[in-house]
């Protein structure tokens, strides 16, 4: 019999210890760092599968750190929402770790290898911690753990990454400070930091100006971390100039952890009652998300740098997730479309960034216009890119199609038809910029042929994670359509009091 109640804390503690072990082992053998990191993340991923299974069969896991009862001590709570996001984050961290092996050897000075993997492991610690914690202040600390690791890891690339990392640091620090200020207001009126306890104490105080101000501070603070339009300004530079493996992990796992924190604050600390009672918060979120979807896509069309194009596409996709959040209060589907897109976007964008970084790895190809005829040279990487791009556009039965379908259902259900038009328009823009890349890669032939680059395929450890994600884009899409994970979605929605509104 496994002590599954202990697993949430193990996911964080083992990772933290492993970060220190990597630092020590690096003195003896630099090669061991990668394998320790990989083994730890694999182990964490296996633990997260057990956690999800336990949550679905037995129920929410509560772990009291040090045995102190919740309102006084720190509590780790894992319910259906946490378990779902935890598994996504650890799976993508695992693939990013596999991907990092060769790309890091290529991009980063050998002397920095030890610190790189230490920080990488700390980043994973922070991400896992943000997701399992049930304490507001603990979440602040863990957000800072993963943010600080991310700032340093982006800057490892040197050159223009330094300025990108600096901008991210200033924006991120202000965001997290806003979140901290929000906690101060909530603590001053309730005297507790535990999320579950807060949820019980807050309803009587919803009219309090301090509580309303706290919501605004926390929303803006976490919105900056999640790169929600118009708070995204740090994001394109950070994604563009970061080292390959780091781009993959921050664009998938880290963006999703921030979105998770946002959803947790909106629906679990505050409730649906709060966001519908005082101001049309859900409507505001939907409208801003709609602007983000169009704005991100239009700017993506204007880019020549492939990674930057994908970064702007990420802003549009964060818009999709937030549109799901905004519509959730007025439809019986609840958060389902938003939660779907958290997984779907992680799969698609992970694959696309892996391919884009593969081109840079092989021939330093950053510009879309240089990719002419690449599909003949790097068939596997380009095929992965093609599948993920098709999925992004919404080719049935891919994950992108499923998200769009469910978002349209949600908008129909809510009676907000304008958002259907927005989804179609944004899809049209996506077709423009993804087709542009695919056309250059697959169809266009350079006149004379001497300008065509002659490169070979990237190493196996770099294209296999991409291909796995590309195939998952379609397999997961079919699984969504069959409806296997719907009990999980229902469990999450009922846990947050959603999906019952007529």
């Amino acid at each position, binding site marked *: 019999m496994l002590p599954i109640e202990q697993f949430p804390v193990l996911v964080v503690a083992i990772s933290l210890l492993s970060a220190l072990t990597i630092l020590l082992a690096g003195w003896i053998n630099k090669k061991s760092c990668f394998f320790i990191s990989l083994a730890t993340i694999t182990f964490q991923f296996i633990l997260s599968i057990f956690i999800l299974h336990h949550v679905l069969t037995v129920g929410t896991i509560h772990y009291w750190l040090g045995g102190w009862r919740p309102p006084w001590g720190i509590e780790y709570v894992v319910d259906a929402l946490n378990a779902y996001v935890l598994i996504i984050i650890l799976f993508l961290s695992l693939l990013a770790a596999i991907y990092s092996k060769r790309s890091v050897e290529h991009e980063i000075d050998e002397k920095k290898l030890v610190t790189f993997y230490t920080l990488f492991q700390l980043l994973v610690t922070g991400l896992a911690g943000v997701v399992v914690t049930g304490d507001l202040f603990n979440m602040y600390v863990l957000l*800072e753990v993963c943010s600080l690791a991310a700032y340093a890891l982006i*800057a490892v690339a*040197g050159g*223009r990454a*330094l300025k990108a990392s600096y901008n991210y*640091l*200033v924006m991120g620090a202000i965001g997290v*400070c806003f979140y901290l200020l929000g906690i101060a207001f909530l603590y001053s009126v309730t005297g507790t930091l535990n999320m579950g306890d807060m949820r019980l104490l807050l309803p009587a105080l919803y009219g309090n100006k301090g509580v309303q101000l706290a919501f605004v501070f926390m929303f803006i603070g976490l919105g900056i971390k999640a790169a929600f339009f118009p708070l995204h300004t740090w994001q394109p530079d950070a994604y563009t100039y970061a080292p390959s493996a780091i781009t993959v992990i921050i664009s998938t796992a880290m963006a999703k952890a921030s979105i998770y924190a946002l959803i947790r604050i909106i629906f679990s600390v505050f409730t649906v009652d709060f966001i519908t009672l005082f101001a049309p918060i859900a409507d505001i979120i939907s409208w801003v998300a709609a602007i983000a979807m169009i704005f991100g896509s239009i700017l993506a069309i204007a880019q020549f740098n492939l990674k930057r194009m994908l970064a702007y596409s990420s802003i549009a996709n964060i818009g999709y997730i937030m549109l799901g959040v905004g519509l959730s209060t007025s439809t019986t589907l609840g958060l389902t479309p938003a939660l779907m897109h958290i997984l779907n976007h992680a799969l698609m964008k992970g694959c696309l960034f892996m391919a884009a970084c593969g081109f840079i790895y092989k021939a330093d190809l950053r510009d879309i216009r240089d990719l002419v005829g690449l599909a003949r040279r790097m068939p596997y990487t380009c095929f992965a890119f093609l599948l993920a791009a098709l999925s992004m556009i919404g080719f049935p039965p891919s994950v992108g199609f499923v998200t769009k379908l469910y978002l349209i259902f949600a908008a129909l259900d809510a009676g907000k038809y304008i958002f259907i038009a927005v989804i179609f328009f944004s899809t049209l823009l996506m077709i423009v910029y993804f087709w542009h890349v695919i056309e250059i890669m697959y169809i266009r032939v350079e006149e004379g042929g001497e300008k065509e680059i002659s490169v070979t395929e990237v190493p196996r450890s770099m294209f296999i994670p991409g291909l796995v994600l590309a195939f998952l884009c379609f397999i997961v899409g079919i699984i969504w359509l069959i409806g296997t994970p719907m009990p999980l979605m229902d469990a999450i929605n009922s846990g947050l009091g959603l999906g019952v509104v007529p």
Partner: protein
Amino acid sequence: MIEWIAQHIVAKYNFWIAIVIMLTGLYATIAKGNLLKKLIGLTIFQTSIFLFYISLSDVGTLAGLGLHYGTAPIVWEEGIHKGYMYVNPLPHVLMLTGIVVSAATTAVGLALVVRLYEEYGTLEEERIMEKEMEIERRGT
């Protein structure tokens, strides 16, 4: 009027000071062109939040300027009988963690500033952007 000022401004002076410091820091972070000054602004901003938290824990009043402070949060029997108020220890503990985090952020920020100076030879944001544009133009 005087009563209102006494009640809302003088009695809560520490909150007002926290807000003034907070806005000073935020202004410096946004408006200054020098990267080091931005970082100083950020640190000021973070510090003001610590002051805000510490102010929350205080139970002292200015009752007619005969100041009453909360005592240290130590429970001893005589104190309870005399009805001493003690300050809330939790915000202090939280801010110890907060100070560590803030110091770490500043450290990473300073390390970045040092590397940026090595790379570009200046810390003025405009100059750095100009040089980046130059590199971009040369690159393509």
